[in-house]
C-alpha cells in the first residue's frame, strides 16, 4: 500500500471514529497514531505519543487561548452586555426594527472583547429578548437577529477561531486579528441593513422603540468606555508591536478582571464561574489541538495534503470555482463540527491547497472563520440556534431557523464581497 492510500484510508477511518461519537480530539489522536504506526512503524508512533503531548500542553503560544477565553468570560459574567445593549438601544431603538439593530450593534461591540460566538449570543439573548418581547417584535426576527449577531464573536477580534487558525498555519495572529476587523464591521452593517429592509417590507416585524434625545444618547456612551479601552489595549498593543498576542491576551484578561471588579459586578461566584468555564473550554480545545498535532505527523508522511494541493492546483478549472467548492465543503463540515474542531481538523489538509492556488493565507483565514460563523446558524447543528432556544424557551426551533434565513442571505452576499475584494481583509494587516 502506498503512503497516499494509507493517508486516504486514515481520513476515512477518522470520519468513522467521528461519526461513532468519539470525542473529536481522541479520534484525531487515535487516527494519527495508528496511521503513523502503519507508515513508520510502532516504535516511531510511540515516540510521537511520548513527546507531542508535553510539547503541545507546555506551549507558550497556546497560552493565548485560555487568556482570551478568560477575558471574554470575565466580560460575560460582569454583565457588560447589559450596558452595551442599553447604549445601542438609545441610539437605534427608535428606528423601525431598532431593537433588533441594537442587538446586532451590541453583539458586534461585545465581540470586540470576547472571542466566542456562543458567549456573545447567550449574553445578548438574556438582555435583548425581554426588551424585544415588550415591544412585540416578531419572534423570528428577534431570535434570528440574536443568533446571527452572535456569530460575529469569532470574527471580530479577539477571536478564538482566528487564534487557532494562526497557530495551526503559523500565520501571524496579530495580522489575522486586524484582518477580521473590517469584515466584522461590514457584517454588522449587512445585518442591520437586512433588519431595516425586513421592517420596511413589513413594519409589524419590528415596531419603533422609545424615542431618546441627543443628550441621553451621548450620556449613554459613558457606560461603554471600558469595552473601547479593552479593545484598544488588546488590538492597539498588537498593532503597535507593544505586545505579542499572548501578552495582549494576558493584559486583556487582567483589564477585564479589573473592570469587572471596579463595577462591583465580579462577585466570588461569578469569578469562580469565569475561571472554571475557561479551564473547561481550554481543556476542550487543547485535546483537539493535540489531536491535530498527532494527526498532522501522519498526514505529512502520507503526503495527502501536498498531493491534494498539486492535483487540485493542476485542475483546468478556475481557482475561484475550486474556492467555492471548498467553501461549500467547509459549510457542510461546519454543520456537524464546531468552529475550533473544524479549523483544527481541516486546515492542515486544505491550507496547502489554498496557498498553492495563490490565495493569501490571511485572507483565507477570514473566509474560513466566516464559514464557521455561517455554520453556527445552519441546521442541523447550528449551535447558536440552540443557545438562543435555551433562553427563548417559548419560541419553536423552526421559528428561529425561519428568522435566520434573511441573515443567511446577507451572509452569502457578505462572503461573496470578501472574496471579490480581498483588500477588505488585507488592508489593515498591510500596515503591520
Amino acid at each position, binding site marked *: 500500500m502506498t503512503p497516499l492510500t494509507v493517508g486516504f484510508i486514515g481520513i476515512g477511518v477518522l470520519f468513522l471514529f467521528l461519526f461513532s461519537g468519539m470525542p473529536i480530539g*481522541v479520534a484525531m489522536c487515535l487516527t494519527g497514531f495508528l496511521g503513523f504506526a502503519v507508515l513508520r512503524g510502532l516504535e516511531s508512533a510511540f515516540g510521537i505519543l511520548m513527546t507531542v503531548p508535553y510539547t503541545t500542553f507546555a506551549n507558550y503560544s497556546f497560552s493565548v487561548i485560555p487568556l482570551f477565553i478568560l477575558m471574554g468570560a470575565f466580560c460575560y459574567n460582569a454583565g457588560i452586555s447589559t450596558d452595551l445593549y442599553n447604549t445601542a438601544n438609545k441610539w437605534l431603538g427608535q428606528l423601525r426594527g431598532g431593537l433588533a439593530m441594537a442587538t446586532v450593534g451590541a453583539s458586534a461591540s461585545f465581540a470586540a472583547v470576547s472571542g466566542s460566538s456562543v458567549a456573545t449570543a447567550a449574553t445578548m439573548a438574556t438582555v435583548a429578548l425581554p426588551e424585544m418581547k415588550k415591544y412585540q417584535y416578531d419572534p423570528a426576527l428577534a431570535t434570528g437577529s440574536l443568533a446571527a449577531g452572535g456569530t460575529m464573536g469569532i470574527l471580530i477580534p479577539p477571536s478564538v477561531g482566528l487564534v487557532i487558525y494562526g497557530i495551526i498555519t503559523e500565520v501571524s495572529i496579530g495580522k489575522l486579528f486586524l484582518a477580521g476587523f473590517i469584515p466584522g464591521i461590514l457584517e454588522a452593517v449587512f445585518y442591520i441593513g437586512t433588519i431595516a429592509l425586513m421592517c420596511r417590507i413589513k413594519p409589524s416585524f419590528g415596531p419603533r422603540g422609545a424615542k431618546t434625545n441627543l443628550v441621553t444618547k451621548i450620556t449613554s456612551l459613558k457606560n461603554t468606555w471600558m469595552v473601547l479601552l479593552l479593545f484598544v489595549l488588546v488590538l492597539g498593543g498588537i498593532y503597535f508591536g507593544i505586545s505579542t498576542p499572548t501578552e495582549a491576551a494576558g493584559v486583556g484578561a487582567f483589564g477585564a478582571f479589573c473592570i469587572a471588579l471596579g463595577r462591583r459586578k465580579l462577585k466570588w461566584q461569578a469569578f469562580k464561574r469565569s475561571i472554571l468555564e475557561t479551564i473547561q473550554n481550554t481543556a476542550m480545545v487543547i485535546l483537539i489541538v493535540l489531536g491535530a498535532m498527532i494527526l498532522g505527523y501522519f498526514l505529512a508522511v502520507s503526503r495527502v495534503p501536498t498531493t491534494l494541493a498539486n492535483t487540485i492546483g493542476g485542475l483546468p478549472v478556475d481557482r475561484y470555482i475550486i474556492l467555492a467548492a471548498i467553501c461549500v465543503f467547509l459549510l457542510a463540515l461546519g454543520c456537524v463540527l464546531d468552529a475550533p474542531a473544524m479549523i483544527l481538523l481541516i486546515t492542515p489538509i486544505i491550507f496547502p491547497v489554498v496557498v498553492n492556488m495563490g490565495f493569501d493565507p490571511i485572507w483565507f483565514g477570514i473566509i474560513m472563520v466566516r464559514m464557521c460563523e455561517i455554520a453556527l446558524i445552519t441546521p442541523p447543528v447550528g449551535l447558536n440556534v440552540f443557545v438562543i432556544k435555551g433562553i427563548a424557551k417559548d419560541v419553536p426551533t423552526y421559528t428561529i431557523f425561519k428568522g435566520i434565513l434573511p441573515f443567511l442571505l446577507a451572509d452569502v452576499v457578505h462572503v461573496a464581497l470578501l472574496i471579490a475584494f480581498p483588500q477588505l481583509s488585507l488592508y489593515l494587516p498591510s500596515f503591520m
Partner: protein
Amino acid sequence: MWLSKLLTYLANSVKTLSRFTNGVAGVVLVAMMFLTAVDVLLRYVFSKPISGSLELTEYMMVIVTGFGIGWCALQKGHVRVEVVTASLSPRIQSILSCFTGFMAFVLFILISSQTFEYIVFKYNSNVTSSVLLIPVFPFVGLLFIGCAILCLAFLVEFFDSLIEVLRK
C-alpha cells in the same frame, strides 16, 4: 451487582480527584494572567521584564491544560459529533459509547505510559529550563497525572455504557 459498586467507587474517586486538579488549574490560570500582565507592565513602564516569564508560562500551561482535561471529560465537555448517533436506537448508542469509551481509554493508557517514560528520560538527561534552570521532569510528571485522570474518566465512561448495554 459488584460491577456497579466498583463503578460507583471508581467514578466517585475520579470525580474527587479531577475536581481537585481542576481547581488547581484554575488557581494557576489566575497566576498566569497576573504574570503576563505584570510582565508587560514592568517591561514597558519600568524596562524591567520578569526574567524567565516565558518558561514560567509554559510550565503553568501544563497545569492549566493537563489538570483540566479530566474534569472536562467527566462533564462531557470534550466535543463530539452527535448528529449520526442521535438518530440511532438507545441500545446501539450505548454499544457505540462503549466502543468510543474503550478506545479513548486505551489511547490514554498509551499516552500516559509514554509520558511516564518521558519523565524518566527528562530526569536522566537532567533537562532544565534555559533561564531559571527549573527541571522539566516534574512538569512532565504533572502532565502524566492529568493524562492518567483522563484515562480513568474514559474508563468510567466505558463502564457506564457497558452497564447500559448489559441492562438492555
